[in-house]
């Protein structure tokens, strides 16, 4: 079983002390990426719920310790170089955010004095009664990490929701936003269990969204939902002052509301929408801000002058500075983490996670084919918000590349006007087809565009082959399907016709017209002017099935002749799929009367059907089985909700044999709405690691849920076997050795291989001492090597006996 596709952006990442690694919270684990290659090098596994905070213990570059907090209510302490779990604290309440001010500000050596390390936690108290009108779920609490216990009875603040805690890089202050207020605490200089942090509150007229502390001075910046940035200077001199400084009460406090404890407050306004990112540079001269526009703004703190990094393409969520002043990272809402080279703000590398689902306007909401799976190579193609297709490797759990479908800059804040609605891949993965729709502005300027892409032979990337504007006049396209073996595709439209497209290569069959290979329409078909809602080729490609609303029409794709009509269902069919090589056809119709039907093609009649709301269908290529992802009806959800088993599970995967309406197997799943399902060919490299299982799975079933997290498993094996299939360790070694000196200038010298004695008699035979020294002496491997082999051969193999 392989899990993956988790979000990289659920909480802010953290850099290691040498800035060569980035620790990213990915669901229940913390993934460690190399910043130079943007590939995953390790992961910290142990938490049983989503990790919300990761804090690297600062210190010298070799120090690799970190604290993590999770929703499972534990705080864990890791050595992430190994990686190894060192310590676990159980708080028993889900932790939403954690800061450890004392370790941030001080050098690591101070730990030797055995002072207690205190963490401040933002936790959710579930014991609070639901029926209270203003339930305060969020609490800020203090925890002694050294003594592994909560500081009893100390609740710094209660908030309606658990809030994200921000800490200043000096470690003196931390704060939260709470609606229109900002709460700032000063950390006592010598922290002990009983010493109470002092609090001030700053007010604003709008709801605040984010705050940031200046690294050295008493400046706090906050962003609000309207896009304003407020900068309070000199906050808390009255409350936090420890000595006997005189506070002049007649002093002017420009811009400061009411009786707030701050010297001045200035407002900057550039962002048009909510500010999501605020961060001071490490020297405190600049303030970085970002938001929904996908533009990183750099403010010079003294003058308010701006510099921009425009067109990042997605709303910004988080800005993280690294100990290396030339490197920082920004997290974007489309599950990307960009590494920025700092003064110039060039994007060096990008860690790309699976694209998160995004909303589609209006009638494109319910389209099922959000995913296209590459059967052989185990890739999934997802539509991105920035008019592209992302190819994500399911076996390796990282993004391969993106194809820009529409040559347009994406402005995240704007109304969605161009949308990629369909993507289809051929079975061998060499061809792709996309459909994009430009939505009209008050009835003018709408455009449907069908594009065919071909996989390049050398770089393995898709390049545009053919563009077809308005393939079915102005009607929308409901489905695109590829012929399983030939260069042929079909597109069906709501306008009442379908078109069969062929690639020019096939017409000529000669190499001389290769440079001009394009797709052209071969045939057009229609059935009683009914909207065509789905299309599929049979596995041998001899039959084309097109659904005309409630009936299924079968065609000969070559001669374009209507062969038969079968039907009908109660509501329009949205998905058609041939079940393997069998004579059965699976159809799915949705609202108002959802139905899953299996049709017998030889009898041209309904074989069996269920009244189920089906989200996705996947058919095995060879076997007579197919799997469906069914949404559980609301009524059954209510009854089952008492059971602890089906918590939050709203769907089920059912595996059927076409002959038999009783499912072969079933699994209940979470977040099935908007999910996808497909069979994949077992990856050979993946199989090698599981050979110990005995029978390697031939086909794997992949389930992608509504949040684009996925799981791969063998649907035919039993449960125990599944679990034993470990995730492939495709982790790349951290590239510590940068090229220096000669190699950095001229590159690596070619390795001159001497004639290696490849004829080492290493074949393990029953009596290896007979063969091990055979052969002429110049052919023999060195004695040191031979000795070990010889001794080993003499020893008795006891592995079997141990068991």
């Amino acid at each position: 079983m392989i899990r993956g596709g988790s979000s990289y952006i659920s909480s802010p990442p953290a850099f290691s002390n040498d800035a060569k690694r980035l620790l990213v919270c990915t669901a229940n684990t913390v993934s460690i990426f190399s910043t130079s290659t943007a590939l995953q090098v390790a992961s910290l596994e142990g938490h049983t719920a989503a990790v919300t905070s990761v804090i690297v213990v600062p210190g010298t570059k070799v120090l690799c310790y970190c604290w993590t907090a999770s929703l499972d209510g534990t705080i864990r302490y890791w050595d992430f170089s190994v990686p190894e779990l060192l310590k676990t604290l159980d708080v028993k309440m889900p932790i939403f955010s954690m800061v450890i001010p004392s370790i941030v500000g001080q050098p690591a050596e101070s730990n030797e004095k055995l002072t207690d390390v205190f963490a401040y936690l933002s936790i959710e108290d579930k014991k609070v009664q639901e029926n209270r009108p203003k339930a305060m779920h969020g609490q800020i609490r203090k925890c002694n990490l050294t003594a592994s216990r909560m500081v009893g009875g100390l609740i710094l603040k209660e908030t309606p929701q658990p809030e994200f805690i921000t800490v200043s890089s000096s470690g003196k202050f931390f704060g939260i936003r709470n609606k229109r207020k900002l709460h700032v605490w000063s950390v006592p200089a010598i922290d002990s269990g009983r010493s109470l942090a002092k609090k001030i509150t700053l007010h604003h007229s709008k709801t605040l969204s984010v705050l940031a502390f200046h690294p050295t001075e008493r400046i706090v910046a906050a962003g609000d939902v309207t896009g304003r940035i407020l900068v309070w200077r000199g906050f808390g001199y009255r409350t936090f002052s420890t000595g006997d400084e005189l506070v002049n009460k007649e002093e002017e406090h420009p811009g400061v509301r009411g009786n707030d404890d701050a010297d001045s407050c200035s407002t900057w306004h550039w962002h048009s929408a909510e500010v999501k990112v605020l961060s001071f540079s490490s020297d405190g001269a600049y303030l970085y801000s970002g938001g929904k526009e996908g533009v990183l703004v750099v403010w010079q703190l003294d003058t308010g002058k701006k510099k921009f990094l425009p067109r990042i393409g997605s709303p910004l969520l988080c800005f993280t500075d690294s100990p290396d002043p030339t490197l920082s990272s920004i997290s974007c809402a489309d599950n990307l983490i960009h590494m920025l080279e700092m003064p110039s703000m060039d994007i060096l590398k990008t860690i790309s996670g699976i694209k998160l689902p995004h909303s589609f306007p209006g009638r494109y909401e319910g389209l099922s084919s959000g995913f296209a799976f590459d059967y052989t190579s185990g890739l999934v193609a997802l539509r991105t918000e920035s008019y592209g297709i992302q190819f994500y490797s399911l076996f390796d759990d990282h993004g391969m590349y993106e194809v820009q479908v529409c040559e347009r800059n994406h402005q995240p804040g704007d109304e969605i006007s161009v949308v990629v609605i369909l993507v289809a891949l051929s079975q061998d993965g060499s061809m792709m087809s996309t459909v994009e729709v430009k939505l009209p502005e008050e009835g003018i300027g709408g455009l449907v565009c069908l594009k065919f892409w071909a996989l390049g032979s050398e770089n393995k990337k898709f390049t545009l082959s053919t563009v077809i504007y308005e393939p079915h006049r102005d009607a929308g396209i409901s489905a695109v399907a590829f012929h399983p073996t030939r260069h042929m595709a079909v597109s069906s439209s709501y306008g009442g016709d379908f078109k069969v497209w062929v690639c020019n290569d096939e017409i000529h069959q000669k190499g001389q017209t290769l440079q001009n290979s394009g797709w052209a329409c071969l045939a057009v078909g229609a059935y009683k002017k009914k909207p065509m809602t789905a299309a599929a080729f049979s596995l041998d490609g001899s039959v084309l099935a097109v659904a005309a609303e409630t009936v299924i029409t079968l065609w000969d794709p070559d001669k374009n002749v209507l062969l038969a009509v079968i039907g009908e269902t109660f509501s329009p069919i949205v998905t058609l799929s041939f079940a393997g090589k069998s004579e059965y056809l699976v159809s799915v119709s949705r609202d108002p009367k959802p139905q899953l039907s299996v049709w017998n093609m030889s009898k041209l009649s309904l074989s069996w059907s269920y009244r189920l709301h089906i989200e996705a269908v996947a058919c095995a290529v060879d076997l007579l089985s197919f799997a469906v992802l069914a949404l559980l009806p609301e009524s059954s959800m209510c009854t089952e909700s008492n059971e602890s088993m089906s918590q939050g599970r709203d769907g089920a995967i059912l595996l059927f044999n076409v002959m038999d309406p009783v499912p072969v197997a079933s699994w209940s799943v979470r977040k099935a709405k908007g999910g996808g399902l497909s069979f994949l060919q077992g990856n050979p490299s993946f199989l090698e690691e599981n050979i110990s299982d005995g029978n390697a799975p031939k086909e794997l079933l992949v389930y992608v849920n509504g949040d684009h997290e996925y799981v791969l498993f063998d649907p035919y094996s039993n449960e125990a076997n599944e679990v034993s299939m470990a995730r492939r360790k495709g982790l790349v070694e951290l590239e510590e050795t940068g090229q220096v000196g000669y190699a950095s200038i001229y590159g690596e010298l070619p390795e001159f291989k001497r004639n290696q004695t490849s004829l080492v008699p290493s074949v393990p035979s029953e009596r290896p001492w007979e063969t091990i020294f055979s052969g002429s002496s110049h052919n023999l491997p060195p004695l040191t090597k031979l000795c070990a082999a010889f001794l080993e051969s003499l020893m008795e193999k006891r592995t079997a006996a141990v068991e």
Partner: protein
Amino acid sequence: MAEPNSTFKPIKPKLKPKPKTPNQTPESKYWSSFKNHQIPDLISSITSLTFSPSPPHPFAATHSTSLKIFNPQTLSPSSTISSFSDVVSSASFRCDGLLIAASDLSGLIQVFDVKTRTPLRKLRSHTRPVRFLKYPLHDKLHLVSGGDDAVVKYWDVASETPLLELLGHKDYVRCGDFSPVSHEMCVTGSYDHTVKLWDVRVTGSKTVMEVNHGKPVESVVFLPSGGLVATAGGNSVKIWDFIGGGKMVYSMEGHTKTVTSVCVGRVGKENVEEGREHRVLSVGLDGYMKVFDYGRMKVTHSMRFPAPLMSIGFSPDCGVRVIGSSNGVMYVGKRKTKEENVDTGLRSFWSLGVEEERRVMRPSYFRYFHRGQGDKPKEGDYLVMRPKKVKLAEHDKLLKKFRHKEALVSVLGNKNPENVVAVMEELVARRKLLKCVENLDNEELGLLLMFLQKYSTVPRFSGLLMGLTKKVLEMRVEDIRGSEALKGQIRNLKRSVEEEIRIQHSLQELQGIISPLLRIAGRG
């Protein structure tokens, strides 16, 4: 990995459909590389064209009662022979290019010195008009002729006597050719539909072989291998295999009217394998010249001329292609030939010593320090590529700054309808087009209306522009009423729309007429 999106993407107009077949194959490129010249003002039709076998390959054209010899470089007549009493029908150079023989319709054959234009011999034996004569390839003493008396004669030129009278044709003999491999074999074609192969060593008027073309034969030519013969008659050119017993290899039916003349052309490429480079060029009364690749049995190039074509010739060095038309115009295609290159190459060979000295560079010379900058990279070299600069047009720059109206006005001023429509589409995607229209002042609105008047009925743009026109009129009706100039624009717009409606009506009528016919045809 995702590319950083930090470059602004300029808008691009929609793509236009490309033709399915590439319009430029290497071969058609070759044939179109013959630069067209016209030599007008020859009287009457040009009955025959022949090239001298010796360089620089001057060519002779016969028309009316004269024979003109042209210089292939300058394409000007170098000499004119007009001592004929009737229309000259055919001419042929001797293999050394010093003599030329010409026949006329009085039945007389004369042999001239090319340089001095003096008639050296007069061969008089044919009683009816002579239609063709031909010198053999390597034989300076004999020639063959044929005419309307249906007799083919083999002459000893020096003694002005016919050695052989080859009888067998039952109608006018119109054409003939000597074999390229033997000076004793010749073919003749006649209006009795037959092509006969003669061997002058065989006495008694017996043909070696005979094939039936099926139509009166207008022209016949041996292909360079000596085994194949191309014949032209009716609308077809046929290739015959004479070694294989005279069976037809292929019949090319590309012409729509009678094919009048064929000759052998060559694709002057070195890398083409032997036997693949020869083509049959044919011209017909339909005004087409067709290039037929008899290796692949395919017409590889076709060219149209504005007059019925009578004759064709192709120079042996592939430099000149001449076509004679029936109205006295010669269409000459000329290419830069190898000849000139060889000439310059020769010159550079002689001046090599001088240039070699100049090429050696010394550090005292400024260019020494710039040497190698223009060098092309070698195969193994690693190229450091400069990042490609994205070229932004004026409207792109304005769109980048979100100055939408200014972008629209700027592109409207540029007169490129594709770009205008592309900008409009981008504005639609940004939901700003109607706002832009609202904000246009009267002058800019005039610009927009002018554009709409011009292009809103163009099918490629009408999908967007029709809707936009309607919206513009709705939104800006007050402003249009207020301005006289805008009213004029609207009148023009109305006129073009009415014109389009008329066209659509007539097209629909046509469709109404055709569709029952198509249905009947489909049933049949």
